[in-house]
C-alpha cells in the first residue's frame, strides 16, 4: 500500500471511528434531552400564547430556534464525518487508478483528509461560538478543499481511463 492510499484509508477509518463515537455519545447523553427541550420550547410558546403571555411565547420560540440551530449542526457533524470518512476509504481503494504522479496524489490525499476533518469541525464550532467568523471560514475552506480534491480525483480517473 503506497503513501496516498495509506493516508486515505487510515485517515478514513480513524475519522469514521471518531464520527461514530461522537454519534454514540450524542445519542446517549445529549440527543434525547435536546429533542425534549426543542419540542418543549415550541409547545411552550403556543401554551404561553394561549394564556395571553405573548413575550414569554416569543422567548420560547427564540429558545426553540437556538436549540434547533445547535441540534442540526451536531447531527450534521456526525453524519458528515462518517460520510466523508467512507468516501476517503473508497477513494483510497481506488486511488491507484488516479492518473497522476505519486507526489500529486499525495497532495490530493492531504487535501481530502484536511478538508474532511476541517469542514465538519467548522460546523460544530459554530455552535460553540455562534456568529464568529473563524468557524464559518473553517467550514467553507474545508468543503472547498474536499471539492477540489474530489475534482482532481475525477480528472485523474478520466486520465487513467483515456
Amino acid at each position, binding site marked *: 500500500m503506497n503513501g496516498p492510499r495509506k493516508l486515505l484509508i487510515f485517515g478514513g*477509518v480513524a475519522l469514521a471511528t471518531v464520527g461514530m463515537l461522537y454519534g454514540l455519545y450524542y445519542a446517549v447523553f445529549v440527543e434525547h*434531552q435536546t429533542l425534549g427541550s426543542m419540542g418543549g420550547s415550541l*409547545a411552550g410558546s403556543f401554551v404561553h*400564547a*394561549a394564556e*395571553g403571555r405573548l413575550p414569554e411565547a416569543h422567548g420560547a420560540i427564540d429558545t426553540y430556534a437556538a436549540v434547533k440551530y445547535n441540534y442540526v449542526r451536531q447531527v450534521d457533524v456526525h453524519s458528515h464525518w462518517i460520510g466523508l470518512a467512507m468516501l476517503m476509504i473508497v477513494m483510497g481503494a481506488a486511488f491507484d487508478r488516479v492518473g497522476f504522479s505519486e507526489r500529486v496524489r499525495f497532495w490530493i490525499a492531504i487535501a481530502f483528509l484536511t478538508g474532511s476533518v476541517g469542514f465538519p469541525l467548522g460546523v460544530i464550532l459554530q455552535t460553540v461560538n455562534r456568529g464568529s467568523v473563524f468557524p464559518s471560514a473553517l467550514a*467553507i475552506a474545508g468543503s472547498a478543499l474536499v*471539492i477540489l480534491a474530489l475534482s482532481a480525483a475525477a480528472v485523474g480517473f478520466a486520465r487513467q481511463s483515456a
Partner: protein
Amino acid sequence: MASRAIPLAAVPTFGPKSARRLLVFGGLALVAAGMLFGDIFAVFVLHQNARLQGEALIAATRAVAARNPTAVQDIFEHLGGTLEDRGTKVDAHVHMIDAGYLALLLALLQPFVALSTSRKKFLATLFIAGGLLLPIGIFLIHYVGVAYSPFPVIGWGSIVADSAGALLIIALLGEAWGLWNYACGRGSAAETNFPQEDSWSRRSLLSGGTVLVLLGFLHGAWYAAADLYRQEAQEATILHAMVDDAAAKNLPGAANEVMNLDNLSGEKAVNIAAHSHIIEFGVLAILLSFIQPYVFLSEDWKRRWVKLLLAGSLILPLFVLLELKFGLVAGGIADLGGLMVIIALIAMLVGVLRYSGSMDASLGDGR
C-alpha cells in the same frame, strides 16, 4: 443471460467462509433493504405525515385563539408523536443503507486487515448483526416508547439501537486493529486483493460515481451558502407571526403562516434529500465498481444494470428537487428513480450469488 467462467485467481479472495463474502452479501442486502424501505416510506408515509403536521399546527393556532392551553398541550403531544414517527423511519432508512455501505467498504479493506480468518469472520458477523439491529431498534423507538424501560426518557428501542451502534464501533475498532497490524507488518498474512478488471462497467461506475458525488458536494455547498441560514431565520420569523396571529384571533393569517411553514419545511427537505441521495448513490456506484469482477453475468447484462443504476441515481435527486415546482408528479418520478437503483442493485446481488454458487459447486467438484 450468458455468464462467464470464474477466474481461478479469485477463489482465495471470495471463499465460502471468507469475511469478504459475508460483508459483500450483507452489505448489498442492507443497502437494497434500506432503499426499499425508503421508497415505501416516501410513497406511503412521508406526504401523509407532512399533512398531519400541518393539521396539528392549524389545530394549535385555533386552541391558542380559544385561549385553551390544555388543548394546545394535547395537540403538541400528538404532534411530537407524528414527528417521532417520521424521524425514526428516516433514521432507520439512512442507518441501514450506511451500515451496508460500511460493510462493502470493509469488504474492500479485507486484503489489508492482518488478522486470522476466524477473527475476520467474527468481526464481519458482528458488523452485519449491528447493521441489522441498529435500524430495527430505531424503527421500534416510536412503537415501543418507554414501556418497561429502566430509564425515564430512553426506551428499549433506543437501548437496542445504541447497543447495535456499539457493536458496529467494536467491529470497526477490530478492523482498525487489523489494518494497524498490516501497516506494522505484524499478524497473519493478509488475503489477496480484489481481482483487477478494466471493464466498461467498472470504469463507468467509478467515473459516474465520482461525478455524482462531486455534483452532490457542489449542490450542498451552494445550499449551505445561499439558503441554509435564510431558511433558519425564516422559520423563527414564521413561528413568531403564527403565534401573534393566533393570539389576535386572526385565524386566516395563522393558517397562512402554517402554509408558509409547510412550504419552507418542504423546501428544506427536498434540498437536503437531493444533496444526500446523489452523494450516497455516487459512493454506492464507486463501491459497486469494485465488486464487478464478482458479478457473474454477461458483460451486456452488466452494462444494462450499470446504466439503470446511474440513470436512477440521477433521476431520483433531480426529481426530488423538482417536487417544489411539479409536486407529486415529480415525487412519483423520483420514487421510480429509487426503484431503478433498487432493481439494478438486486440484479447485481443476484450476479454475486450466482458467482459464489458456481464457485462453491466447482470447489465441491474438486474435492
